[in-house]
């Protein structure tokens, strides 16, 4: 059971006021807030053992290296990867996707096919379009339904011996739909295609088992999991990571360098050129420990309660429409007021101390599908409360009154 009042004590930012009102933070799908324990880890690193890793013999360097590699093991354990070196530290989900998309340049041929879903974030569309431009491969799109679910029959038809890669997010950032990735991975493997799952949105809600999923690549960002910004991870099966070439050249990623020839270091260092975000990696590990101490099962139960309550309360407002009505969704409510621009609603709601996202959520194809300029998106986390949802409902009512 979640003790939300106790949990809120862990997050100093939740005490602050915005525009003279207590902050109600409902933009968790964009970034989560940071608990004190993670902030302390960042301060501790810079106060006590800041050093470059993997190269110094001195004590500080060894302490920092140990803490960083410890964090890698925590992440490995959390995602249940087989080996720690299958976890690559990156600057975030976008960086992780680009490592894979760039790495496939020499593994694809003209007319090979790549499948993406209509529910993707731009960061999981553009790198693949660029890959197609480089290789002559063709991008195929799994369409979506009015409820915001993928049309699986079409996915079945799109899969063929030409399919080399399938990319889909675990959860849609704009609508909250949980995609049936287990089934999608299995089907892709029957035609020999590799699968990358974008877990940017699922990270804070679902504890995955990459081995059970048998997924080839799984990518996520720390900052949506109560960690700091600028750090994330790429999980790849060992055989795939060995097949992909390095993404960047530099220090740390080499075994031997002469001007005639350089040999690359093994995993994970091959993909970690240069001095990494050491502090960020360590804090990522602490954030994962924190989330696990709360417990993902309890988080799911509580957030679902918030979703049901929020959906019911918001639908009490006449003329309010929710986009994304799948039965399988996380605590994201994307909505509009009839005849009112989402930007207007967002502006008024912000004045009342409530942080929601407005706009296309970097998912323009979804907005085009519904023929709307954007939505207002409220995304709940385990530290939010029903009282905060009540405040949102009152704010939206006020906006409606002012704007229509």
């Amino acid at each position, binding site marked *: 059971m979640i003790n939300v009042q106790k949990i809120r004590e862990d997050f100093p930012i939740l005490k602050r006021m915005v*525009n003279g009102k207590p902050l109600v933070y409902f933009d968790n799908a964009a970034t989560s807030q940071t608990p004190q324990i993670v902030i302390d880890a960042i301060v501790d690193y810079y106060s006590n053992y800041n050093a470059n890793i993997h190269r110094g013999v001195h004590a500080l360097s060894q302490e920092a290296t140990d803490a960083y590699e410890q964090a890698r093991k925590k992440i490995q354990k959390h995602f249940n990867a087989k080996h720690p070196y299958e976890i690559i530290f990156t600057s975030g989900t976008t960086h992780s996707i680009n490592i894979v998309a760039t790495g496939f340049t020499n593994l694809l041929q003209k007319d090979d096919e790549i499948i993406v879903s209509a529910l993707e974030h731009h960061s999981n569309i553009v790198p693949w379009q660029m890959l197609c431009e480089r290789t002559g491969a063709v991008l195929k799109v799994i369409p979506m339904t009015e409820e915001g679910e993928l049309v699986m029959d079409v996915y079945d038809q799109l899969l063929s011996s030409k399919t080399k890669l399938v990319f889909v997010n675990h959860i849609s950032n704009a609508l909250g739909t949980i995609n049936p990735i287990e089934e999608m991975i299995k089907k892709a493997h029957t035609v020999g295609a590799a699968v990358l799952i974008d877990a940017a949105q699922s990270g804070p809600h679902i504890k995955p088992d990459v081995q059970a999923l048998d997924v080839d690549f799984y990518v996520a960002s720390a900052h949506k999991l109560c960690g700091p910004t600028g750090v994330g991870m790429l999980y790849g099966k060992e055989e795939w990571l060995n097949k992909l070439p390095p993404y960047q050249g530099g220090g740390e990623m080499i075994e031997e360098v002469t001007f005639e020839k350089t040999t690359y270091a093994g995993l994970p260092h091959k993909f970690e050129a240069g001095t990494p975000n050491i502090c960020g990696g360590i804090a990522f590990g602490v954030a994962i420990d924190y989330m696990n101490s709360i417990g993902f099962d309890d988080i799911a139960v509580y957030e679902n309660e918030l979703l049901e309550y929020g959906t019911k309360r918001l639908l009490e407002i006449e003329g309010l429409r929710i986009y994304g009505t799948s039965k399988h969704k996380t605590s994201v409510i994307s909505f509009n007021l009839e005849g009112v*621009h989402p*930007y*207007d609603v967002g*502006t*008024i709601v912000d*004045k009342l101390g409530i942080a929601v996202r407005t706009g296309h959520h970097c998912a323009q194809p979804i907005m085009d599908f519904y023929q709307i*300029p954007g939505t207002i998106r409220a995304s709940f986390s385990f530290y939010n409360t029903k009282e905060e949802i009540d405040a949102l409902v009152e704010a939206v009512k006020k906006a409606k009154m002012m704007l229509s």
Partner: protein
Amino acid sequence: MTIQEIQEEIVDEFSMFDDWMQRYEYMIELGKSLPIIEEKYKTDDNIIKGCQSKVWVHAEMNDEKIEFTADSDAIITKGIIAILIRAFSGQHPKDIIDANTDFVDEIGLKEHLSPTRANGLVSMIKQLKMYAIAYQTQLN
């Protein structure tokens, strides 16, 4: 009236309100008085980039004075562009180019001036001044 005088008048009007709600309500009201752009000018070329909502602006010069018309699909944005146009319309291009726009801050719209703000108030001011620069070039 000069741009400066119009701006002072707008600041005066807004100073009557004690809270943000009244200011926003007044701004929404001002949006209704916006000289609306003719349908034929509502083209993609006339959309101001950098706004979360759509804003179209058109400018014409008669007797060395620029007249602006505009529209937006968002009500608050419409109010903001109406305020800017009220200050700039009917003025000489050079005066528009030289105009200081600090009054936006004084009427409590400071938050809209931040470059991170998706409504693009900064882009709107820039676009109006760009029109003025273009017409000023014709006069030279």
